Every structure is written in C-alpha cells, then in structure tokens.
C-alpha cells in the first residue's frame, strides 16, 4: 500500500548509493514490494534501510528486515499514536471546546503535529545511526505502557466532556445538575456495555434519533 511512497522517499539515497544501471533498477524493484506500516514509525525503517543499502547489505537481508519490522512498527505505532496519543489529545481539545475554548482545534493540530514531526525526524535519524539495531531501540521505548496511560487519560477526558456537555445542555444547578449528569453517566456506561457486546453506534443513533424526533413532536 505504501510501496510507491517508500521507494519515492528512498530515491535520492538510492541514486547516490547505486548511481545508475542494473543496481539502481534492482534497488527500486525491491523497494516497490509490498510495504505497510505506521507512517510515523516508517521513518525508522527508512533510516535503517538507507544504512543497509550504503553498507551493501544483500538484497534478501534488506527484504527480510523490512518484512520483519513493518508489522511491529505498525502495531506499536497504532497502539501509541492512533489509539493512545490521538484520542487523548482529541478528547482534551473536545473538553476545552465544551468549556468554551475556541482555540482548542488549533492547539490540538499544533500538539499532534509536533509529536508526529518530531517522531518522524527522531526515528529517521536513529534508524540511520543504528541500522537493523533500531528494532531493539523501538522495543525499549515502552510504547505500549505509555499508550495505556494515554488511554486512561482519554477515558477521563471523555467523562469530563460528557459532564460538561450535559451540564451545559440542561443549565441546572446544584443537586439537580449532579443528578442529571449522574443519570447521563449511568446511561452512557450501560450503552458502553452494549457497544462492547456488538451494538452498532450508527444504528443506535438512528433508533434514538427517531425516538427523539417523535418525542419532540408529541411533547
């Protein structure tokens, strides 16, 4: 899926290393093979591959390295960036939005953009410096543990968003506010159990939407 992009990124290095002719063509061929991993950690693979190409590693060794690393990089990247950092930062921005901060989306883009660019740059350099040993370096970072803490933060912020939104919608004060928010939290947790067991959110939205519109017309 990412093979053309992978070969495109490597092209300047491959031309510098192999110059022209059959070696360059063969290098392009092997880097046009299937490749799919997390975009932010792909740079670790790219850096290491450049190092291996420079050192004249056999084609089969480079191929095995790429195939061996793209899966784990994908898993680590998906866990940390897509299932950890992104939800936590989005939930923080959504919470700020509900609390009235109109600048929340831009803060989110700046924060996540910085994280993404920094990751790409750092891992590109580390991949080049370490070569195939970048795999151990990736394992030592502890992406999964960090991702779990970010998921906890996202869960807390989601609760905050719910309470802030429901509080704002109802405009109640004091005990009534706490009761309404408590009720919303309870309903949310029951529905969450349904989602966990296979309830399709879109169909739930359609069903609830129909009920709400009917109730609104009748009430």
């Amino acid at each position, binding site marked *: *899926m990412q093979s*053309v*992009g992978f*070969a*495109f990124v490597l092209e300047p290095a491959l031309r510098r290393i192999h110059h022209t002719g059959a070696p360059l*063509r063969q290098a*392009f061929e092997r880097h*046009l093979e299937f490749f799919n991993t997390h975009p932010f950690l792909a740079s670790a693979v790219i850096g290491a591959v450049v190092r291996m190409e420079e050192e004249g590693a056999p084609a089969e060794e480079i191929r095995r390295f790429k195939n061996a690393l793209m899966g784990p990089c*994908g898993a680590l990247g998906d866990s940390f960036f*897509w299932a950890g950092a*992104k939800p936590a930062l989005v*939930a923080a*921005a*959504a919470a700020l*939005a*509900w609390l009235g901060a*109109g600048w*929340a*989306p831009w803060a*989110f*883009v700046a924060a*996540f*953009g910085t994280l*993404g660019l920094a990751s790409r740059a750092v891992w590109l350099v580390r991949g080049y410096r370490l070569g195939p040993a970048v795999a151990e370096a990736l394992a030592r970072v502890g992406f999964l543990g960090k991702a779990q803490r970010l998921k906890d*933060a996202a*869960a*807390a912020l*989601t*609760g*905050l968003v*719910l*309470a*802030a939104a*429901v*509080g704002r*919608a109802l*405009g109640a*004060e*004091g005990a009534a*506010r*706490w009761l309404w*928010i*408590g009720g*919303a*939290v309870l309903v*949310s947790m029951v*529905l*969450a159990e*349904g*989602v*966990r067991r296979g309830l399709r*959110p879109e169909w739930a*939205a359609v069903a*609830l*939407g129909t009920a*709400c*519109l009917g*109730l*609104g*017309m009748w009430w």
Partner: protein
Amino acid sequence: MIQDWLLLTLVGGVAFLDRTAAVQSMASRPLVTGAVAGWILGRPDAGLLVGALLELFWLYELPVGAAVPPDEAGAGLAAAVVAASLPDAADLWARLGAGGMAGLAAGHVGGRVDVAVRRWNRDLVGRARAALAAGEEPGLGRLVLVGGVRFWAAGTTLGLALAGVGLWLGPRVPAPAFRGLGLLGVTLVVLGASVCLGRLASRRAKGCFLAGAMVGAGVGKGAWPWRG
C-alpha cells in the same frame, strides 16, 4: 452562498488529502473541519461543538492495517454545514442533533469513496514496475503526485456534494422538529461517550471515565451554587 460553497469544497479537498494520503496533520479531524466550516458559515460555535460531538464516535476508529475508517473529514464538514445552515430559530442543541446525524451518515459515504480511490491507486505500483522492466525511469515523484491528485479530486468532489446537500437541506428543516433535534443533540453526546468507553472496554477505563465525569460536573457553572 456560492462563495461559501466553494470555500467549503476547498476545505473538503484539503482535509480529505490530509486524512491519509498526505501530511496527516490531523487537520482532517471533525473538530478542525467542523470549526473551519462553522466559521465560514458564520456559526463557529455550532461548527466547533458538532465537530467535538462527532469526535466521540470515531476516537477509536483506527486505520489499522488495511482497514479504512469512516471519512471523518467529510463528516465534520457535512455536520457543520447542516448545523450552521439551520434556521435562526434553532438553538445550539437542535443544530448539534441535526449536524450530528448528517455527519454520521456522511462519514460512511466518504469512507467508501476513500476505499474506491485506494483501489484506483493500486495501478501505480504496476506502472512503476512496467517502466523499470522497459529500462525507463520509474517516475516515482510523478506517480506519488498522481496518487495525491486522485485523493484531492475525490475529496473535492465529495466536499462539493456534501456542502451542497448540507446548504440545501439545512434551511429546510422544519421548526416543529427543533425540539426533537435538541433532545437528539444531548442524546448523541451521551451515545458518543458510550462509544468511546465501549471501545476501551476495561475496568480501569470505567474508573477513569467516572473520575473525569466528576471533575467535569464539579468545574461547570452552577455546580456549587452556594458559592455564588
């Protein structure tokens, strides 16, 4: 209105490109596309909050492996356009209800468009290999550009359609529906939070969720009325 439509189409094209094909700066998230679309149409608060609402549904829709999640960029755009285009008599929650439903539907339409473009782009590897086999330059830069342009074209067309439908539909929502839509707006927030929590699916997540809800309840206006 035509000017707004064109601006929204531009936003749609750029955001669709940013989703996966280029940069991935997260400017394609509903929070951002909703805020931008709402600002273009003169209702930044509705756009921002309907984007924040949609985020809850797709926070854990991950582009894992070959899976393609719903098109959150188009969804944010469609949601904000509908939310902002409702008649003036509609309150914020009616806008969120209408926009939220529009966004959920648009997300699935856009997701299919994304899949179609990825299938279309599969020929690019073959073209590079064919060039190499013929002893020619593979033209990788040009192929990357072709792939990007295809994504941009699809996103622009989708943005044009979604914005157009939203601008047409929004003002036609009848006033008797506003109360029900307002109720739906609150319901969607609850449902969105439950989707997030359901996808996390751990006892620890529930504990964190409860803690966050208590903090959110405690910091809001009117939480402690005896303080004045």
